[in-house]
């Protein structure tokens, strides 16, 4: 079964949450990344996400397997959007079910952090000024 997915369509969270329902679960934590209208002082008009899909799916699945081993949770899902996104659209969703809330929150946070660190997906911001820029977290170090 695949717990990590990539979609070019608007993310539908209800079916993913439904996959996590379990009579043993007393807690469900979820996270959504939304496209916001600014970043580091610049006005953003929209985003483009590009993925190396084959590797992103493998790395995402590995990451969720690790989460299931590291935390006392029942199950987890993560989906990342690609393509063009407007302000307010959902770029990423993480959902975690667990017996108790400690593990649900901790695993949900870990999954979004690791996804942002490890999964080969890139964000290009379009600014209101018309400029577009690919974001690479260590770009300063590369100059």
């Amino acid at each position, binding site marked *: 079964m695949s717990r990590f997915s990539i979609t070019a369509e608007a993310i539908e969270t209800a079916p993913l949450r439904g996959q996590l329902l379990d009579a043993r679960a007393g807690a469900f934590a979820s996270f959504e990344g939304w496209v916001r209208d600014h970043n580091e002082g610049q006005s953003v008009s929209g985003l483009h996400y590009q993925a190396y899909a084959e590797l992103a799916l493998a790395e995402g699945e590995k990451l969720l397997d690790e989460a299931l081993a590291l935390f006392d949770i029942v199950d987890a899902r993560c989906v990342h959007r690609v393509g063009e996104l407007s302000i307010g659209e959902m770029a990423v969703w993480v959902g975690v079910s667990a017996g108790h809330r400690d593990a649900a929150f901790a695993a949900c946070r870990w999954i979004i952090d690791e996804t942002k660190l490890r999964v080969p997906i890139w*964000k290009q911001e379009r600014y209101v000024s018309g400029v577009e820029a690919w974001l*690479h977290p260590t770009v300063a170090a590369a100059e």
Partner: protein
Amino acid sequence: MTGVQVLYFASLRQAAGVEGEAVQTAASDLAGLYAELRTRHGFAWDSAHLRVAVDGAFARWEDAPAEGAQIAFIPPVSGG
């Protein structure tokens, strides 16, 4: 010479102007292959800031390019 397929993403794709290309290389490892392509396309990144993948799995810079392999250079990611 070894024939490989190279994939570019994000700012590397922007700099190369193509999503990927077929390359004939005499490089003995993936670091050498990247150095050749960096010269050709003027990539800003040193290989120390990138990761490399072969056929959909992360690989090591010291691995030799294999005939027909699909090789991807992975700049720092920014999903989420």
